[in-house]
């Protein structure tokens, strides 16, 4: 996950991650993001950083994101009451994607959760978006705080090491991580630092996310950057990488006005929570969402991938029209994808324009740029599944 919300706060009121001094030392251009001063790019620049992540390994500081623990034997059932996702059947040692919903079925945030054996004294480890974390934690506390302990972890930093050589670099420091497969994880000592790491990320590449105490984050980051495969990567490339991977940016592509079905995130809602499943419904907005699943024709709009047929970047909030000039939707994220080397976008269109191959027009500076509805990811994902 990553989020687009930027703070309007003055620079001196921005929060700093534990790696702030390192970013400055590395020459990063710092920008306000989700209330934090964050590196948007390093001297290599967005394009080089993007390519480096796809070809070798990139290190991202995502410490602005929210980390929390849900503790107690009822934690999974409690979390299931907030998200349309199978939490109870997720085995210990595995991670899953989830969507926090409001009572209208709108998406409050997207998140990742990991079963660190909550049933036997461990926890559910949850990671949410930085810009949403205060609200998320209050929401979770209010809704399920009586059923499990909700413990925010502001003392923890979060690093992401992403790319085809991430495993090579990390296993040099922490032998054994190579045995993990996508969406699993465990505790490892990395460069003397006590870490909880998962084999996952938000770039479409193989890689890891590493939760580490703030006091050890700088040591860990420097040890990772000392590996020949690894370079620091800013938020700019994180955005272009995630878009090529077809992954949503909270605040752009999904928000409280979009349901998971409209957002084409049906894959995140397992059968057990759908009509006919053993634990069907029982999440906020279930009536609306199950009805949308049963009859997709009722959808007002649907998220699709789009590729421009001319070399003109098509950006957020660009109007989409049918070829006969009627407004049919809007782009929510768009840029020239550095790897695919074509303008790519995602956006919402009326359902009758959502079929793959449908021709639409994006209205860029008054001119129609032809686009085609295309399958996502735009760049093949390379998750390690063993």
């Amino acid at each position, binding site marked *: 996950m990553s989020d687009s919300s930027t703070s309007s706060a003055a620079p001196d009121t921005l929060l700093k991650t534990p790696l702030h001094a390192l970013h400055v030392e590395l020459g990063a251009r710092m920008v306000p993001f989700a209330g934090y001063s964050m590196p*948007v*790019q390093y001297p290599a*620049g*967005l*394009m*080089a950083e*993007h390519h480096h992540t796809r070809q070798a390994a990139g290190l991202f500081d995502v410490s602005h994101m929210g980390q929390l623990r849900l503790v107690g034997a009822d934690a999974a059932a409690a979390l299931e009451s907030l998200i349309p996702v199978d939490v109870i059947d997720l085995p210990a040692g595995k991670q899953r994607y989830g969507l926090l919903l409001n009572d209208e079925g709108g998406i409050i945030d997207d998140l990742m959760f990991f079963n660190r054996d909550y049933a036997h004294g461990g926890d559910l480890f949850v990671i949410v978006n930085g810009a949403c974390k205060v609200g998320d934690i209050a929401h979770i506390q209010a809704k399920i705080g009586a059923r499990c302990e909700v413990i925010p972890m502001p003392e923890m930093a979060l690093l992401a090491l992403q790319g085809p050589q991430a495993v090579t670099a990390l296993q040099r420091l922490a032998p054994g991580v190579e045995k993990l497969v996508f969406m699993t994880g465990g505790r490892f000592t990395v460069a003397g630092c006590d870490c909880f790491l998962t084999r996952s990320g938000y770039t479409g590449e193989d890689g890891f996310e590493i939760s580490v105490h703030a006091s050890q984050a700088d040591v860990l980051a420097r040890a990772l950057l000392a590996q020949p495969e690894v370079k620091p990567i800013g938020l*700019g490339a994180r*955005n*272009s990488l995630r878009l090529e991977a077809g992954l949503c940016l909270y605040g752009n592509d999904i928000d409280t006005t979009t349901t998971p079905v409209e957002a084409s995130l049906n894959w995140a809602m397992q059968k057990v929570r759908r009509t006919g499943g053993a634990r069907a419904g029982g999440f906020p907005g279930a009536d609306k969402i199950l009805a949308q699943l049963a009859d997709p024709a009722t959808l007002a709009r649907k998220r699709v991938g789009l590729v421009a047929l001319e*070399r*003109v*970047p098509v*950006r957020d909030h660009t109007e989409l029209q049918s070829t006969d000039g009627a407004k049919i939707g809007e782009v929510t994220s768009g*840029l*020239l994808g*550095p790897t695919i080397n074509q303008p790519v976008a995602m956006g919402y269109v009326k359902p009758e324009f959502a079929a793959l191959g449908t021709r639409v027009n994006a209205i860029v*500076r008054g001119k129609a740029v032809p686009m085609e509805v295309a399958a996502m990811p735009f760049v093949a994902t390379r998750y390690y599944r063993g």
Partner: protein
Amino acid sequence: MTVKYTEDHEWLKIEGDVATVGITVHAQDALGDVVFVDLPAVGTTFAQKETAGVVESVKAAADVYMPVSGEVTAINEALKDDPSLANSDPMGAGWFFKIKLSDPSQLDALMDETRYTAFAA
């Protein structure tokens, strides 16, 4: 040959009544890797400050303003094919377009290199 600069971080190289226009080193650095340019059609006439084109990086898009009034007499076709010229040689091979000045007195209000360097600092 005189070189002038605008507050929009564009440069003009003036030869007679024709100015070659591009974006400054500072501008291309702020934008990052340029991936797209939209240039005006040759023969089009613009007033000063009108939007004449667009320059885009992966991260951002910026309008290119007409620094002085005039008619577009040439555009850099090589830049359309390889927008990264705006990064690698912004004051040279990365030029955007040439204009025939309709009011050369507008040049007087533009900055010279010393003033622009201070402005962009």
